[in-house]
């Protein structure tokens, strides 16, 4: 025992221990809105109310059953932003407020494990949110989900969940330089409703807005899920899946890159309090 304490062997961090510790602890500490009542509300209440809201707006605007179904699918997927973007991007705010950012930056924890670990529960909640949303779409808004489309749908939903949580982590990285992440979280919580083909096809927007929409992972996730429901060929789906996977990889990569850059700046300036 005493040998273990006095020996100069370097402290070894375990990838999986960091991963699991973050997966279990982050919902209780740094992720926003992870109380049980909030999670249940996010999964069961928000998809329903958001879909009902836009379904009635479409109905008032003279849209028929097909347009209502289109909107219902889009919003079923878009509600994923609550758990994946809004909640996840608040991790940096929480770390700053709780005074744990300094400790985190000097810890030898593997950053990849830390990030993926923090994303685990939001990914699971995101999958649950989209699944419940699609169930509401089928039961209440006349959306037909053919049994043959379910495998492709599952792949699309899982990829979308990963991509969106990666995007949330990326925003959390950007929020390192802001006074608060709430504003960023609020912008990206809803901007997808306009730019991601959730309520109407992206093609009806001006070209610059279409380009902006193409930069959002939600756009590709919604397209992949619509394509899966339409029973499109694997070639078409494959391209969309590749786009969603690319968005996920880019988001996670950029998030980790931002953290690394922030760490270097913190070491160079000796301060992380200036933002």
């Amino acid at each position, binding site marked *: 025992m005493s040998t273990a304490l006095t020996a100069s062997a370097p402290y070894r961090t375990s990838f999986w221990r960091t991963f699991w510790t973050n997966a279990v602890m982050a919902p209780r500490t740094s992720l926003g*809105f992870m*109380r049980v*009542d*909030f999670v249940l*509300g*996010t999964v069961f*209440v*928000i998809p329903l*109310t*958001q879909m*009902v*809201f*836009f379904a*009635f*707006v*479409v*109905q*008032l*605007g*003279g*849209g028929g059953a097909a347009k209502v179904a289109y909107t219902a699918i889009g919003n079923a997927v878009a509600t994923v932003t609550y758990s994946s973007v809004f909640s996840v991007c608040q991790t940096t705010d929480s770390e700053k407020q709780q005074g744990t950012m300094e400790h985190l930056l000097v810890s030898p924890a593997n950053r990849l494990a830390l990030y993926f670990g923090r994303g685990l529960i939001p990914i699971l909640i995101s999958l649950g949110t989209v699944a419940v949303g699609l169930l509401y779409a089928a039961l209440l808004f006349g959306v037909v989900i053919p049994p043959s489309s379910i495998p492709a749908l599952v792949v699309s939903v899982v990829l979308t969940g990963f991509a969106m949580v990666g995007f949330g982590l990326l925003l959390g990285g950007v929020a390192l330089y802001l*006074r*608060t992440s*709430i*504003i960023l979280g*609020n*912008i990206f*919580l*809803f*901007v997808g*409703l*306009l730019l991601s083909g959730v*309520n*109407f096809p992206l093609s*009806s*927007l001006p070209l610059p807005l279409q380009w902006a929409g193409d930069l959002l992972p939600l756009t590709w996730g919604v397209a992949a899920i619509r394509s899966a429901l339409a029973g499109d060929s694997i070639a078409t789906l494959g391209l969309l899946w590749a786009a969603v996977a690319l968005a996920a990889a880019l988001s996670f990569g950029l998030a980790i890159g931002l953290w690394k850059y922030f760490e270097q700046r913190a070491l160079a300036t000796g301060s992380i309090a200036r933002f």
Partner: protein
Amino acid sequence: MAAAPAQYSRGRSTVAAFRLSVLQFLADPQWLVPSMIAPVIFALVSFELFRVAGPYFLTYAILGAGMMSMWGQTLYGSGWATGQDREFGTLEPTIQAPTPYLYVVLGRVLWNVLSGLIGGLIVYLVILVVAGGPPTVTDPLGFALLFVFIMVTLASVGVVFAAFYVYTRYAGFIQNIGEFAFYIGTGCMFPVVLLPFFTNPISLLFPPTWGLDALRYLSIPGYRGFEWGFWGDLLGAVATTTAYLGFAGMVFYRVERHVLEEGNLSEY
């Protein structure tokens, strides 16, 4: 020498609470943004969805989004009105002060509604730019007067929420999870009569539902809302607003009694 009795004025307390809210807002005005982003985006989405549905649907989009902005600010601001006291540890001292707590909260809620109006104006300007012109309003003066009255109805709801939030840990849940439900229930973007009939009595419990229906009767020719029409809506709005303010007074009186009996408001 006997100490002079403490002098206080309810009106001065309300003005002071209002002023403090304004100063806090000016110190960090970014907090207008969260309550404004959703309405602006919803207005743009609705504008796109209503584009082919006729000229008066522009009024729907603007009115709805403006209401959502004010609703959002009322919902969040009222929760914060008591939440901040609890967080700062000033709830008990404020309630122990000679001025009834209701008048302190009223000042904060009035600012919330006013800042919601600022958000609503920004929404209006955004839609104005996108649509390329203002919507057609048949009676601008009546519209403006009724709009101010709707702010009063929202303030009354805000005061009741603030009173209710003293006793619940679920203020954040109601604000965040219930946001869309309030938008739907009070018919922000579409008439409440479109909703299933059994939901109508619930909607009618909220003063803004009546006020908004009246506003649409006034500004949209051929509008079909509640069958009792404009004057019925107006009467309902006045009655429910009065009931809300009376109810809020009762709840705050009970809160004050509770503090005197228990000595704290930490257990809730």
